[in-house]
């Protein structure tokens, strides 16, 4: 067995999703290689070589990969697939975009969003917004998998001493090109790996009111998230969405503010260690999963909470 983790990076560091995929790869067994496609990505290759548990880092450094277009990255992965029994990536917008294309080109199934490895070809994954857990066995010779980051601890970024090898670019598929991006910038920790997440829903009433949550998040060193309703209403950008079809988070502390707790939202946060709900409706379903609930008006409670945190215990 040999596992290839298709790595994701920002030019400087590996994404947390990739580090979690490395952990899943180690559970599968066999050697672990990490593929990095990028332009001028030598620093990331150096970083990846230090990740504990990684044996080889394959680097395809080419302007073609300055932006990871699915058609080109899939082509590259397929060109290297011969040497591997398993191909893994994080189940984030990068892995979800690229890996099914890889699987189809190899004529094999993909197992999406695994939460546990029960054998080299047996995995547990959520279905129906996490209302059921399915154990599946892959029957193809090669196995393509995307890994849910919250289910696997990220591999340690120090301790490894992998070999770095250069691999050739696989050519431009000539099907798509990158135009640009409007990325949300934030000084706060990244939503999917933050220790604390404060999320707001429709109850926030406006984008301006999210400042209340930002203040609270800053006090807790956390990230800010949202329900679909808050994103659809335009209060916050799309990348704030937590849920079945948004981001999956499992922080130490999740604070849901003005969020009713629809199953699609719970799907994205119910594995958090401690859940706090602030809602004026005592019947709101969010209270059924909250460790600590407080019934009342968020516009009064959130500033009060922020202030209470200023005082030492």
């Amino acid at each position: 067995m040999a596992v290839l983790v298709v790595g994701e990076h920002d030019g400087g560091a590996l994404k947390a999703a990739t580090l979690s995929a490395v952990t899943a790869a180690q559970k599968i067994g066999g050697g672990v290689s990490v593929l990095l496609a990028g332009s001028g990505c030598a620093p990331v290759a150096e970083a990846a070589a230090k990740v504990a548990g990684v044996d080889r880092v394959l680097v395809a450094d080419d302007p073609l990969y300055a932006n990871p277009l699915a058609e080109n990255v899939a082509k590259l992965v397929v060109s290297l697939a011969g040497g591997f029994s398993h191909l893994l990536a994080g189940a984030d917008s990068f892995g979800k975009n690229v890996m099914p294309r890889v699987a189809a080109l190899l004529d094999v199934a993909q197992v999406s969003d695994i939460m546990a490895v029960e054998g080299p070809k047996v995995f547990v994954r959520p279905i129906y917004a996490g209302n059921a857990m399915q154990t599946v066995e892959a029957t193809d010779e090669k196995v393509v998998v995307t890994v849910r980051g919250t289910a696997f601890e990220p591999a340690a970024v120090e301790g490894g001493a992998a070999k770095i090898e250069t691999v050739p670019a696989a050519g431009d598929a000539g099907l798509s090109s990158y135009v640009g991006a409007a990325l949300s910038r934030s000084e706060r920790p990244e939503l999917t790996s933050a220790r604390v997440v404060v999320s707001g829903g429709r109850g926030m009433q406006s984008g301006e009111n999210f400042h209340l949550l930002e203040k609270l998040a800053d006090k807790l060193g956390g990230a800010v998230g949202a329900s679909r309703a808050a994103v659809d209403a335009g209060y916050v950008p799309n990348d704030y969405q937590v849920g079945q079809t948004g981001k999956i988070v499992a922080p130490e502390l999740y604070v849901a503010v003005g969020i009713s707790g629809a199953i699609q939202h719970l799907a994205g946060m119910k594995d958090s260690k401690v859940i706090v709900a602030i809602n004026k409706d005592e019947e709101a379903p969010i209270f059924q999963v909250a460790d600590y609930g407080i019934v009342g008006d968020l516009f009064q409670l959130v500033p009060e909470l922020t202030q209470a945190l200023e005082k030492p215990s």
Partner: protein
Amino acid sequence: MKVLVAVKRVIDANVKVRVKADNTGVELTNVKMAMNPFDEIGVEEAIRLKEAGKATEVVAVSLGGAPSQETIRTALAMGADRGIHVQTDVELQPLAVAKLLKAVIEKEQPGIVIVGKQAIDDDSNQTGQMLAGLLGWPQATFASKLNIEGEGAEVTREVDGGLETIRIKLPAIITTDLRLNEPRYASLPNIMKAKKKPIEALTPEALGVDPKPRLKTLKVVEPPKRQAGIKVKTVQELVDKLRNDAKVI
């Protein structure tokens, strides 16, 4: 230009799903079914392309048992022109769906194909990407804006960091995200009209595709249950609990 949209019949998003006692799957009998919400968005987008004069015909395709026809009827009632039903009672997994759709696409020669980003039952998020791979076409996944311009399209995609825009050649596969549009409801007259629109019936055999599942389900179980906790009366009590009991702050 012809637009092809894939529509899947799934358990309605509002239904509380129950795992079967024998752990083979989830309860599907007497459960309310509906069109996959992402496919409603796909149908809406296709119809808008036609209304904007960019598309000439909208074809809705569904794969599965006989009841999938109802889902096609829903698409026809929303405004699709005709349907194709690939009938099979075999459990269809994304790779098989992609192969069947590819065969249909080779017959129909659409200029653009719209599928949902994810079916809310299996939550696979694979079919569109697989289909694009099999066809050797570009893919624009998780689309929140689609602009067709001549031989190509500019698509805004919802990605982890925010929004990304790419340009793709046509024909191409688009997968829909939630913010692409807000699907319309079918009006009563349109529901009546839809009854007369044609639905072609096909089979995997006729399309020359082996739909056999590649993933074997060993079991399906309930997720670990979370216990409801306590209600606190005051913010101070909350802070005390978080500090001293939960020790998370």
